């Protein structure tokens, strides 16, 4: 049966990040799903070629608003490798502490967003309140809540003072308690269980085949973590476990993220206890010798890759960024097939997409050859109403 495809008109980058899903349905069930991306081309990679390495750090920090530190970590460690210099241990430890704090706030933010998508807004408000603790710590350490500007080529720019360490350690205790509470809550609360268990299943073999990364692949029982497999910064010294879950559904992704937060709290406390006493940074020369490097780091959303090619000047010849969300789109298409329309928002949200919200969704009814367009809010409301009716 032929289906009608409608090109979606102008989008609204000012409101939510632009992306387009075309979803073919039969009654309530999704038959096929297609993701269209590329509406938000910002030309960052080209702009990197026109700026010096120092200026590129601040440009790449603004690729993403949540994992800003991940991008600078990946870029700076790539450039350090090209320069063939060893960064002082204390610098690497502080870099890793900020990395883990960023993971905490990113996962906590996601937990709130997931709560919002399934109509459990109480969870959103409580998680975001607890997230403020980490945001305050980041501001205390770096001087800014979002774009920390901590990384520089050759180390970090600010030291963690002695007075701050007890506050941070106590804060991590509080945060770990909250994470343990949320893990208990999510495994008991019927709203969460009903909307997440058995939804958006990505079997282990498919997760491997589709090249999923980050918590998405770890929730499919694949023990894959860039911090363990290819340790960068101070990850080769810090003890931690890779968290996996074997139910392969959205609930597994909730559980993996909460378990990772508990691990991160432990890691931060360990690093604060074992902070080396040398320098925080090296002063390196501005001209980078000719060469190319592939730098990898496990961002909160998954494996982040930067490719840097230098040509002997103070500007890179090519910078390529592969964000984890891009690697997860094929998995989303797979997960959407066969689910209910009501589950579309939470399945898309379950990979923690950097293009955070569905700009618009087109529905194509296969039987009636009818097409209509919903925005993400309408779709979310539909999902909540659908499950309310189903329950009674």
């Amino acid at each position, binding site marked *: 049966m032929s289906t009608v495809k409608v090109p979606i008109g102008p989008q609204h980058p000012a409101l939510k990040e632009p992306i387009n899903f075309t979803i073919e349905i039969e009654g309530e069930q999704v038959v096929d799903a297609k993701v269209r991306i590329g509406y938000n081309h910002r030309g960052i990679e080209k702009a990197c070629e026109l*700026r010096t390495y120092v*200026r590129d750090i601040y440009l790449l920090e603004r690729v993403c608003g949540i994992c800003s530190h991940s991008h600078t970590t990946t870029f700076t460690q790539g450039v350090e490798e090209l320069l063939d210099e060893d960064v002082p241990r204390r610098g690497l430890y502080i870099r890793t502490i900020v990395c883990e704090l960023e993971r905490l706030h990113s996962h906590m933010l996601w937990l709130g967003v997931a709560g919002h998508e399934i109509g459990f807004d109480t969870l959103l408000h409580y998680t975001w*309140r607890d997230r403020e603790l980490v945001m305050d710590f980041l*501001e205390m350490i770096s*001087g800014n809540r979002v*774009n920390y*500007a901590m990384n*520089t080529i050759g180390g970090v720019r600010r030291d963690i003072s002695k007075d701050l360490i007890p506050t941070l350690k106590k804060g991590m205790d509080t945060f770990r308690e909250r994470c343990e509470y949320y893990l208990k809550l999510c495994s008991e609360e019927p709203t969460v269980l009903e909307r997440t268990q058995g939804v958006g299943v990505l079997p282990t073999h498919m997760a491997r085949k589709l090249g999923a990364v980050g918590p998405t692949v770890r929730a499919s029982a694949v023990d894959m973590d860039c911090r363990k497999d290819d340790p960068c910064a101070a990850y080769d010294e810090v003890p931690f476990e890779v968290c996996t879950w074997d139910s392969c559904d959205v609930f597994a992704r909730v559980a993996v993220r909460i378990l990772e937060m508990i691990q991160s709290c432990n890691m931060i406390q360990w690093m604060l206890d074992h902070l080396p006493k040398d320098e925080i940074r090296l002063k390196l020369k501005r001209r980078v010798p000719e060469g190319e490097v592939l730098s990898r780091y496990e961002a909160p959303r998954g494996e982040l890759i930067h490719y840097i090619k230098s040509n002997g000047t103070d500007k890179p010849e090519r910078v390529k960024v592969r964000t984890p969300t891009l690697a997860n789109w094929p998995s989303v298409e797979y997960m959407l097939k066969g689910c209910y329309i009501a589950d579309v928002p939470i399945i898309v949200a379950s990979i923690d997409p950097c293009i955070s919200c569905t700009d618009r969704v087109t529905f194509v009814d296969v039987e009636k050859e009818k097409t209509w367009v919903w925005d993400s809010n309408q779709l979310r409301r539909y999902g909540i109403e659908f499950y309310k009716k189903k329950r009674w």
Partner: protein
Amino acid sequence: MPRPAAMEPELLRNFPRKPFTVFYPFERLPPFEGLRGRHILYLKRCVGCGTCAKDCPSAAIEMIDWPDEFPQELKNKAGKVPKVDLGRCLFCEQCVESCPRDALEMTQEYELATFDRKAMEWIVDMETE
């Protein structure tokens, strides 16, 4: 095991508490030490080399000729002074780090919203000491 109203004890515990939100314009939290706010320039130390302008990621700093209203006795050899466009500034503190003479510093002043676009084109606050 599903347990209905699993969050109820937490909600009851928080019920008598004050709201967590700070009602900003009426109630202000003190900024943390090390917050990156508006710039300040120590005129005596500035040599007008323009390194800050070269390193600024958003090209917010422009080196201009020594303005007439600035004390002429402090004029450096280059006769230049940085002008910071706060509308473009990212507040990354790279200029402070790049300055060879520590002439630039960042204050904790963060309330910089204005209705006038021109008001954002500061020739930075000067400090003659």
